[in-house]
């Protein structure tokens, strides 16, 4: 933590960055994002196991961007996000200084996106046992049970869009859900509107999701909506051979292989 504060201090002091995006102590036992522009305030920075929010979401926020070049505290999921954003031409080497945090909690500097890419490739995205178990349970259900499970799970959603707001990959300024000519997704949060919204969100995450869990953590009513993206990730691994975040690879959904399975096509 001292090292992180020291590095942040240096970066702000030298003027290399105008802003450090990190975590600070919040109310109660909460931690929260902090935006530091004054080197003196770097003492506020903390890092511990509670610091799981994906800070990369702020890299595309207009008011954060106007402050100037940021340095960002980046855990493994954030590093993955940065690479995915780079592959979608949302970031370059110069966009931000990366204050990497390795899975064992050490500060690690990266000077290029390639370095980050090499680093994250050491850690394959793996589902936790708990998630695997839940997904397996759902798979074991009959289609009717699965349908009931998801309708029941998604009905409480009141469409506050916290999942979208917390997701760093949802950087579109106008979301499909807000397109009204035609109205793809009903605005009210009734069952159909909710199902279509979550289905659409999952499909738009296909091959892009870095499994940071921000969407599910942001949900004020605790809908486990990242089960959808997790399952999709597993499917894509099985169907397309791998699920890897890389700068120059093309999204799995915008590429194809001539030998892709078509056993289901008549």
């Amino acid at each position: 933590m001292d090292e992180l504060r020291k590095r942040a201090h240096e970066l702000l002091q030298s003027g290399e960055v105008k802003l450090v995006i990190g975590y600070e102590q919040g109310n109660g036992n909460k931690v929260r994002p902090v935006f530091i522009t004054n080197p003196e305030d770097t003492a506020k920075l903390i890092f511990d196991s509670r610091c799981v929010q994906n800070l990369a979401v702020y890299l595309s926020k207009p008011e954060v961007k106007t402050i100037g070049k940021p340095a960002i505290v980046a855990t493994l999921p954030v590093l993955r996000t940065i690479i995915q954003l780079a592959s979608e031409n949302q970031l370059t080497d110069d966009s931000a200084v990366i204050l990497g945090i390795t899975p064992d909690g050490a500060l690690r500097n990266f000077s290029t996106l390639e370095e980050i890419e090499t680093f994250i490739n050491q850690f394959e995205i793996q589902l936790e046992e708990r998630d695997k178990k839940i997904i397996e349970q759902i798979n074991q259900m009959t289609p009717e049970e699965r349908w009931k499970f998801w309708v029941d799970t998604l009905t409480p959603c009141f469409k506050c869009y916290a999942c979208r707001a917390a997701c760093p990959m949802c950087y579109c300024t106008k979301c499909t859900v807000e397109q009204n000519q035609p109205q793809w997704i009903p605005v009210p949060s009734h069952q159909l509107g909710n199902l279509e919204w979550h289905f659409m969100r999952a499909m738009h995450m296909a091959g892009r999701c870095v499994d940071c869990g921000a969407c599910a953590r942001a949900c004020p009513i605790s809908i486990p909506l990242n089960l959808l993206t997790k399952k999709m990730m597993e499917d894509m691994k099985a169907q397309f051979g791998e699920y890897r975040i890389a700068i120059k690879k093309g999204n799995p959904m915008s590429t194809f292989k001539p030998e892709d399975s078509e056993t289901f096509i008549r």
Partner: protein
Amino acid sequence: MSEFEPKIVAFVCNWCTYAGADLTGTSRIKYASNVRIVRFPCTGRIDYMLLMKAFGEGADGIIVSGCHPNDCHYTSGNFHARRRWIVFRNLCDFMGIDIRRITFSWVSAAEGAKWADLVNSTVATIRELGPYEGYQNISNYLKKEENHG
């Protein structure tokens, strides 16, 4: 009570399947009349949301069909579509959307008979499955009263 007549929406590409369906007609092959055809330039243009909308508006079954691999008028549109269908199908299945109600197929401009067979067998399948009540229950929100959440 009258017998259930499945409502089926077919999303087809202009170059192969639409021409194939046309051939079915000009060849005077008789086939089930339950299908409403929606023509697209290419299967690559068929957004999964359109399929969701079809169910939402009361379709009991869906056919999605285009050119055989390597025959795409735009070279690779159907390959891209195939990828999306794989992911789409998996997600549908995981969410309990009845994937038996969505038939994917390649029907070329010369396969008039295949189109007739495809429609007939799809209609038979859906007839057996019955109306898609699960989806219609959630989409008929007009019948529902307020949502207190």
